[in-house]
């Protein structure tokens, strides 16, 4: 009996040591030593909808000036630039063939001196700080200019 109780105490002691060991090992494992990642500030999202009314996708338009008309729903174009971002306020960035041609504070604009041929128009509704919403709000239209 005494021998059994002694063995039980031994077993309990070993089990206690093992449990403490596990606790110490888990404690040491918390906290990584890896380098900190860059700030993950979330860009705001917007429920706005942007579409190109003119030039229509696939259309042929007379040059060299091309009139642009856009439709923006559930948001408005504002003039001030600010880091106070609202999901329904922003600016319009206009790119023609991958090059930035204007940043509009309205929904209508004219691009002058567009060469004859095929072109790709990209417009984006960006936030008041001129950086994109997440997800990005982009509309594209492929058109041809004939003189």
């Amino acid at each position, binding site marked *: 009996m*005494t021998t059994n*109780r*002694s063995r039980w*105490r*031994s077993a*309990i*002691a*070993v089990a*206690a*040591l093992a449990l*403490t*060991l596990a*606790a*110490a*090992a*888990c*404690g*040491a*494992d918390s*906290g*990584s*030593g*890896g*380098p*900190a990642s*860059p*700030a*993950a*500030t*979330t*860009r705001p999202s917007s429920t706005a909808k942007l579409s190109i009314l003119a030039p229509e996708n696939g259309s042929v338009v007379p040059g060299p000036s091309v009139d642009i008309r856009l439709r923006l729903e559930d948001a408005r174009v504002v*003039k*001030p*630039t*600010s*880091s*106070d971002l609202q999901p329904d306020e922003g600016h319009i960035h206009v*790119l023609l063939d*991958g*090059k*930035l041609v*204007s*940043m509009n504070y309205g929904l209508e604009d004219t691009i002058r001196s567009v060469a004859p041929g095929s072109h790709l128009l990209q417009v984006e509704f960006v936030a008041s*700080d*001129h*950086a*994109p919403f*997440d*997800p*990005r709000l982009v509309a594209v239209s492929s058109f041809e200019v004939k003189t």
Partner: protein
Amino acid sequence: MRRLGRAAFVGLVAAGIVEAAAPWAAAHALLESSRPEANETLQAAPSQLVLTFTEPPDPTLSSIHLLDSSGTDVRLGTPDVSGRTITLPIASTLADGTYTVSWRVVSRTDGHVTASSFAFGVGQAPAPTATGSRPEPTSPSPSALSVLGKWLLYAGLALLLSAALVAASVLGVTRPPRWVLASAASAALLGWVAFVTAQRSAIGASAMAFLSSAAGRPYLWIAAAIVASVVSTIAWLATKDRRALWAAAFFAAGAMLARSIGGHADAGSLSAIEVTAQFAHLLAVGIWIGGVIWLLLLLGRIAPLRRPDAVRRFSTTAGIALAVVAATGVIRALDEIGGPTHLGRLFDTDYGWTLVAKIVTSLALITAGAWNRYVNVPRTANGPAGERSLRRVLTAEAFLAAGIFGLTGLLTGLPPASSASAQAAPSGPRPLAVTGSDFATTVRARLEISPGTVGPNRFAVRVVDYDTGEAVDAERVSIRFSALSNPDVPSSTLRLGYATGATWVGTGSAMSIDDRWELLLNVETRAGSTQVPMEVSPRVPTGRLEVTRAEGQPTLYTTTFADGSSIQAYVDPGGPGPNQLHATAFDPNGDELPLHGISLIAIPPDGEALVLDAQPFSAGHFAADVAITPGTWRFEIRALSHAGGILDARFSQAFDGADG
């Protein structure tokens, strides 16, 4: 009640001198100093890199790279290692630009790895990195395997040591349970394997490479001692010869000595004292805590009439061991935190907090031991009831002892508070330094300008005799400032006040624009006046860069300046091909900051800087088209506000097929 009070008193007294550390080697080679220094602007290219660490680095396991602004390795010569310093010749002459020193070092003291980087500029102020201009060293946190390995090692050695010194000699049990000794020997051996595996994994070297290095060689001595102890244990298991039991204890002590010699205790100037204290500490811990375990396991095997005497003898032995643990622990703790004047580091660093946790646990263990000594031990003479209480408290001591071993395993993986605290105190920007002498070479001057940027500065000049180096006995010292490229900017004069020795100081905002300035130092003595011409280009204040990345978004680079204004820039769409560089300036309130002008510069991976055609789209927002090719590009944005403030933002971005 009196016994309770006495036990509590012992606990409180012990708290004052409690075993404050058993730093079984906690070494990290952190960067102590370098030439060039972090964020230094050099007027001439350096010919070598000199890095001095807090611990001697192991050259076979360490690496140092010098990268130019495009991330390309600059060829370095064969490193020369002298003590804690590594000197690397730079094989080529560095062109003007920003350079990054990236280092990864394994401490020769006990094999811990640390890494970090810093930048310096040649002919220009270094551009801030994405992580800011104060890179902090990284060191892998102690892994679970490392802590487990050390726990098994310490527990195994403690039981092997105290089997002969306590179980046989004090308690009179000459044949301790075989399974306990076998387990202890196995634990010590397995612990060594786990610990070495964790170390070489953290370093990223093979086991052979690690053990054959200067950092790994001490582990071989520990292994030899452990193997000898294991062999002795096997011999005892087979023969029950007491000499084998004592041999096992002797070699366990040998492993403790090898650990002490190969650890942090051996790294300082008082290594003989520290190693001796460390070794005594380990032996005393082994006797005390190992003895507690043996007493708990063997109490039932001791004849009832002999138990009270055996317990009293152990209590006395444990008391002596505790005193040694406390005294040597204080010696080691003070060494690790940098001295008694740095007790605050206990609460400033991870090492310190872990140490505090260990102190608290030790206090609880000491209190339990004191309760046993003054309350339960006398009760054992009264029969089984007293013994039951003793066993309960012994069990509690065993739990606490196991916790201390775990905390020690964690502690030895952290940078000591003294070095961690030194690294946590970043240095400010290095002052601009310029030297000169008069035409007749009678006077030499060294001028330091702090912070060395456009705007207000502190000017400290040391004026000495050209030949002797002795301080010049000047009556008046002044500096005349002239902007070399802007003659319309009127010159101004700053009179300096005498400070001490050969040094004169003054403060002023004479260098008010970003230009190259002529500084004419005028030194008036009784014999006449002497002019020392110097030229300097102040640094443009750079801000803190924050990089924001998100899936499907261009990477945003926001540079915030000391006055709270900022520039946000991004390259869109962020891949090879046609892109736009956007830059928007904001005032401290977050509103658009109108700019008087801006320059947008893009530097491609293969060299020539491109001045982009910046189109204004609003008062503070500009954009330019840029055709991006694969590789790492640098962008420099220099904006001038209407108030005359200069905003300088820089960043680098890699463009490849998968980036953007």
